[in-house]
């Protein structure tokens, strides 16, 4: 517990899927669910922060205002955040900052998306100075191709196998079976993963997460407001890390075509992803040994293994060992992605980091029905997006 904790008063989601409706509808559904969970009226919210969606026109660019208007203008302050896959966490951080500054008391944070089918691609138009456009035009470099580069490194450096990657999918599919918000609720066998088409060697179709529609919302309040509101022991946000990379960034990141140069002696202390987790632990005053449950960004199965090491939950090259040992399965020593992860959800960009916070809140309350991690007190999330964005949120009880 520290001076910069805030309370998670309520969480709510709209189920992930391919519903073909407006992101506003999903967002309002999630917002109302979170407000009902908190027992707080919309008219008592004094700050609304939206996660921007870039594929839904102007209303998506000003998502905070769009949700506020859909809920009925109530005079609240408004902000909209965009940080690629870390959008939800950055929106949460904005809300937290105003609460901790004493400028707001009750904040509603909402992220929602409607996504197209297939590969995520840049918006139309020629942009010869945009790396996200150039990587497609000049190289045909899709997101799964980047995931595949990382997966291949695990195989060549640590002896990981496609069967290990498949085992991540099998585990997460089982975790998500009873999650009412998950899009895919079906057991998957390792054979099915390995028999699915190879998209980007060594990754198969079932190693790679889909893109989905969905929405998640979180109601944050000051600890004092929570107390007055009758929330005696709320789940707290102990840290939100949204650090940028440190030069030289020597690991190839989407959508870049190259890394920064590293000279002799200029090797960075931590990779970008390692620095995200490190910043979260520092802020929370907690360490990896305190973590009971983790929700990490399994854009691909192999990335879940990378994240376990990036968050120092195990040493480099040891994630496969924990996986094979059952440690990361619910009931094991350190369950990872009890929600089912992106494997069961698919990615709804501006909602996804908030969905991780929703899951960790339910886990810490002991209310994750059918997927509960026993006695969880500390949870950590992690994700990374384009252009130097990433986040890690630590919740504690």
């Amino acid at each position, binding site marked *: 517990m520290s001076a910069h904790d805030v309370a998670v008063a309520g969480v709510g989601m709209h189920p992930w899927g391919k519903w073909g409706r407006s992101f506003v509808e999903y967002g309002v559904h999630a917002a109302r669910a979170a407000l009902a969970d908190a027992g707080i009226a919309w008219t008592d919210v004094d700050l609304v922060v939206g996660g921007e969606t870039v594929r839904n026109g102007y209303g998506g660019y000003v998502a905070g205002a769009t949700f506020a208007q859909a809920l009925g203008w109530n005079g609240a302050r408004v902000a909209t955040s965009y940080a690629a896959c870390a959008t939800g966490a950055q929106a949460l951080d904005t809300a937290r900052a105003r609460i901790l500054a004493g400028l707001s008391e009750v904040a509603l944070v909402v992220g929602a998306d409607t996504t197209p089918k*297939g*590969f995520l*691609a*840049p918006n*139309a138009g*020629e942009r*010869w*100075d945009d790396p996200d*456009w*150039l*990587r*497609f*035009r*000049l*190289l*045909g*470099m*899709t997101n799964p*191709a980047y995931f*595949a*580069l*990382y997966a*291949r*490194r695990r195989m*060549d*450096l640590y002896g990981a196998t496609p069967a290990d990657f498949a085992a991540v999918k099998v585990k997460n599919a089982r975790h998500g079976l009873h999650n009412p918000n998950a899009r895919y609720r079906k057991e998957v066998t390792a054979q099915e993963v390995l028999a699915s*088409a*190879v*998209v*980007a*060697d*060594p*990754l198969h179709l079932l190693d790679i997460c889909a893109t989905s529609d969905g929405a998640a919302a979180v109601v944050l309040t000051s600890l004092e407001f929570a107390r007055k509101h009758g929330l005696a022991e709320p789940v707290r946000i102990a840290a939100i890390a949204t650090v940028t990379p440190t*030069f*030289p960034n*020597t690991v*190839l990141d989407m959508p*870049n*075509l*190259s*890394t*920064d*140069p*590293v*000279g002799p002696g*200029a090797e960075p202390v931590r990779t970008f992803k390692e620095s995200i987790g490190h910043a979260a632990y520092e802020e929370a005053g907690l360490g990896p040994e305190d973590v009971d449950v983790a929700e990490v960004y399994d854009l691909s199965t192999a990335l879940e293994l990378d994240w376990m090491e990036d968050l120092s939950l195990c040493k480099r090259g040891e994630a496969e060992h924990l996986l094979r040992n059952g440690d990361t399965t619910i009931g094991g020593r350190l369950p990872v992605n009890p929600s089912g992860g992106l494997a069961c959800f698919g990615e709804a960009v501006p909602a996804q980091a908030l969905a991780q916070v929703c899951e960790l809140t339910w886990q810490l309350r002991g209310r994750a029905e059918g997927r509960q991690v026993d006695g969880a007190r500390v949870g950590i999330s992690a994700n990374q997006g384009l252009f130097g964005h990433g986040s890690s949120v630590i919740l504690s009880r």
Partner: protein
Amino acid sequence: MAEASPAIEGWFTTGAEPALVGSRCTSCDSTFFPPLRPGTAGFCRNPRCEGEEFTAVELSRRGRVWSYTDAQYQPPPPYIPAVDPYAPFALAAVELPEGIVVLGQVAQGYGVADLAVGREVELVVEVLHTDESGERTIWRWKPVAELGEETDQ
């Protein structure tokens, strides 16, 4: 038909020994790829350097594979498929002696089976696709035959 031209201006040379072109900061000597666009303001990415002047330098033609994959499904636009029906191709991230990892497609005729992390590759220039102005070329990474792999012709 017009002569083949680079798909992007100024990123690589096209002679007998083609090379990527980087921008080297005249203040701190950090070298970056892709190079700065001619006519645009450039700022050194080193946070401890305020350099704004750069010289064009050719990067090493050989490097070692950092990782690799392939594109078995046709990428979406703005990728322009070279052939119809689509033919998969391999991709490699290559670590150059300059300390930069640079992505590229893998040379025609080579796939993931020809690659391994740490394997030496060399830069070649090949046709990426054909558009209204003719053939457009791109840099690619070609595996260098390892000792003992030379064909005995």
